[in-house]
Structure formats: C-alpha cells, structure tokens
C-alpha cells in the first residue's frame, strides 16, 4: 500500500510539474503574441498620425486665399484684397460711401487672430451686402490689444504703418494684406522688413509709401481710436458698433457674422439727413 501511495505521489507531482510547465509555456506564448500585436498596433498608430500630419489638414487661416509671388516673396490674399476694395471709395479709415446712412465701426488689432479670421471669412460678405449697396460704410479703428497681453511691440509698429497710409487713402488695401499674411500673435513678425514686403504686395500701396515711424497723424489716429474704444468699453477685438449718420449714437453689434445687416437696418432708421455740401 505504501509503495502504491509513494508511486501515486510521485506521479501526481510529475503531472503537476508538467501542467505548470505547460501553463508557463502557454503564458509565455500568449505574452509573445500580445507583444507582437502591440508592436503592430504601435506601428498603426504612428502611421495614422504621420498621415494626418503629412496631409497638412489643419485650419487654413487665410480661408484658402490665393498665393502670389511679389519680388520673390510669397504673399496671400492679394487678389482677395483687390476684390474687397474694388470700385469702392476710400476716405482715410472709411471704406465705401462717406455719406451712407450708417457707419459700421470695427475695432481691430492687426495682430489679433480673431480679427484676422473675421477679415478673411466675413468682411467680403459685409462689404458686398452693406457697403457696395451704400446701406453703410465701414470704418476701421485700429487699437493695440495684443502687444500688452503678449509682451510684444510690433503690433504698435504695424498700427503706425497703417495709420501713416490714411492720408493717401492706402489704409484699407494695406490692412487687408496684413491680415491675410498675419503671423502668430506671440511672435514679433511685423518688422520693418516684413511690413515693407506687405506694402509692396498690397494693391496700390507700394514699398515707398510705407513709414513705420510715428507721425503726428499716426499718433492722433491711434489716440482717437483708443479714446473711442475706452468710452465704448471695448474689451476685446474685433468689436463692432453701428452709428447712424449725423448722430453720436453707437450701438454694439453682438453677432457681427449673422446680425450685421439687421443692425445696419435698425441704425438706418435713426440716421439724420445727409449734410449738404
């Protein structure tokens, strides 16, 4: 009996050892299979990300604007700027009929990406629907809101350059060209060199018209814009107001993308008769 029991114990131990060995082998094989699958998964992940980044499918901040080479420098939005201002009178910072019943006042910063987005995606529509039809004119008041937030100084320089073009009525094409070619808000991109390139490409402007030094006129225009922005409690850009002709009434437009036409229509009802010359 004892011999039988000893033999059984030995057999059981051998069987247990064999089962454990087989289980360990199965576990090792399983782990190896999983690691291979994991390697495959990692490769798939890398390929997916590489394809996404390589296709460059991120937002086109110029709204798909045409690119043109001007003196060897590639600039965006030259044609779009021409289309924006084509056939419209320009009077300093005002685009369109200066006697229109309503003035749309836009506060903007040349370094503000939200202003840039508005300029390239919405401005043409507003100009075509409201300015070309003489329901309103559009006045751009440049304020400097990004520089203090980002610790840069080139926004002020770009504003001076734009304001120095007001007297020659070259303000609008320059501003539009700057927006289509705007750099990052935290970068110092509005250098003398870059602004000269942009002035060269801006339709009807030219490098010789550019002046980035502060002048009495640029100082006055900046001060006027800042003062009006402060009195209207403008906290961010772009900010829009409509002003009926002959009044000092400024009504904010909360939804400039969808509600500008209604705001202009409402303001037109309060417009006074045009001044006779």
């Amino acid at each position, binding site marked *: 009996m004892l011999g039988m029991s000893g033999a059984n114990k030995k057999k059981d131990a051998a*069987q247990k050892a064999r*089962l*454990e060995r*087989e*289980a360990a082998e*199965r*576990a090792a094989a*399983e*782990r190896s299979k*999983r*690691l291979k*699958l*994991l390697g495959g*998964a*990692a490769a*798939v*992940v*890398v390929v*997916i*990300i590489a394809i*996404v*980044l390589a296709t460059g*499918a*991120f*937002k*086109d*901040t110029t709204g798909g604007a045409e690119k043109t080479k001007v003196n060897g420098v590639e600039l965006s939005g030259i044609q779009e700027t021409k289309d924006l201002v084509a056939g419209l009178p320009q009077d300093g910072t005002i685009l369109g009929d200066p006697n229109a019943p309503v003035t749309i006042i836009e506060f903007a*910063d040349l370094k*503000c*990406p*939200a*202003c840039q*987005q*508005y300029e390239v995606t919405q401005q043409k529509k507003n100009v075509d629907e409201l300015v070309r039809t003489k329901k309103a004119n559009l006045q751009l008041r440049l304020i400097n*809101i*990004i520089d203090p*937030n980002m610790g840069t100084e080139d926004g002020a320089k770009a504003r001076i350059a734009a304001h120095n073009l007001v007297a020659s009525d070259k303000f609008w094409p320059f501003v539009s060209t700057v927006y289509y070619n705007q750099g*990052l*808000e*935290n970068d110092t991109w509005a250098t003398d060199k870059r602004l000269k390139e942009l002035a060269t490409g801006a339709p009807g402007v030219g490098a010789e018209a550019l002046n980035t030094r502060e002048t009495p006129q640029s100082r006055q225009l900046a001060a006027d814009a800042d003062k009006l922005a402060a009195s209207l409690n403008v*906290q*961010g*850009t*772009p900010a829009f107001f409509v002003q009926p002709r002959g009044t000092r009434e400024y009504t904010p437009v909360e939804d400039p*993308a969808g509600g500008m036409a209604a705001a202009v229509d409402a303001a037109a009802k309060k417009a006074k008769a045009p001044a006779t010359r």
Partner: protein
Amino acid sequence: MRDQRLRIVSVVLALIGLASAGYLTYSKYAHDGVCGVSSGCTTVQQSEWSELFGIPVSVLGILGYVAFLGLLLLAPQRNEIVRLLLVVGTGVGFLFSMFLMYRAYVTLEAFCPFCTTSAVMMTLLAIISTVRFVLGPGPEGPGPGTSALAADGPRGATAE
C-alpha cells in the same frame, strides 16, 4: 479583478477627458472670435492647429472619448479586438495630444489648462489600455482568487 479595476479607472479618466473636451468645445463656440479677453485656451483655439479637416479638435476629442467609453462600457471586455482597438485609439489620441501640446506650449507659448487636462487623460488612458492589453483579460470564472494558471490547469489536463 485587476483588469476590472483598470477598466473602472479608464472610465473615470475618459469621463474627465470628455468634460475637458466638452468645455473646450463650448468655449470655442461661445468665445471664439475675440482677442484681448482671451485665455490661453482661446489662443490655442484660434490657431491653425485648432481644426483638423475642418472639424475643431475639441470636437474630435469628444468623439474619441465617447468611443472609448463605448468600448469600455458596452463592448465585451474579454474580446481581444476590443482591447486592441482601445490601444490603437488611445495611442492615436496620445500622439496627437502630444503634437497639440507641443504647438500650444512651444509654438504658441500658451497655457491652456483644459487642453492640458485632456492630454494628461489621453496619456493615462493610453498607458492603462496598453497595460490591460499586455496583461490580458485574466481568468474567467468565479472571481477573486482564481489564478490564470489554475483556470488553465484543468483544460490542460483534459487535453492530455
């Protein structure tokens, strides 16, 4: 049991990520288009890296977290394909988040707490999903205390 705990942790992480992506989507539509009153998140959301194929990346984040929650809560957890899909999905989310973090912190120099929260959640989800896949679903059976070896034992013996 360990797999079940990791799954619960993953669900919690995905819910936190979903909340972050949801807030970013809300803020994009509520505050998009204004400079000067913005936070780092607005700066990030106005940048060229804020949209992919015309879809805001925060919306892609929401879709991703919802998909992960679906896989974690509704799909059979012992299914290897499900576990592998989680590895691939969270892996793509992790790498893409790292790219966006690079753009936010290095290129734009903007600190966006909600973007960062989402990226951290995606990173942890990717790590946990990988660990869960490598460890396997564990033993099927009565519950705690049943080892993979013991569960495999009888089957091995029967095969003999």
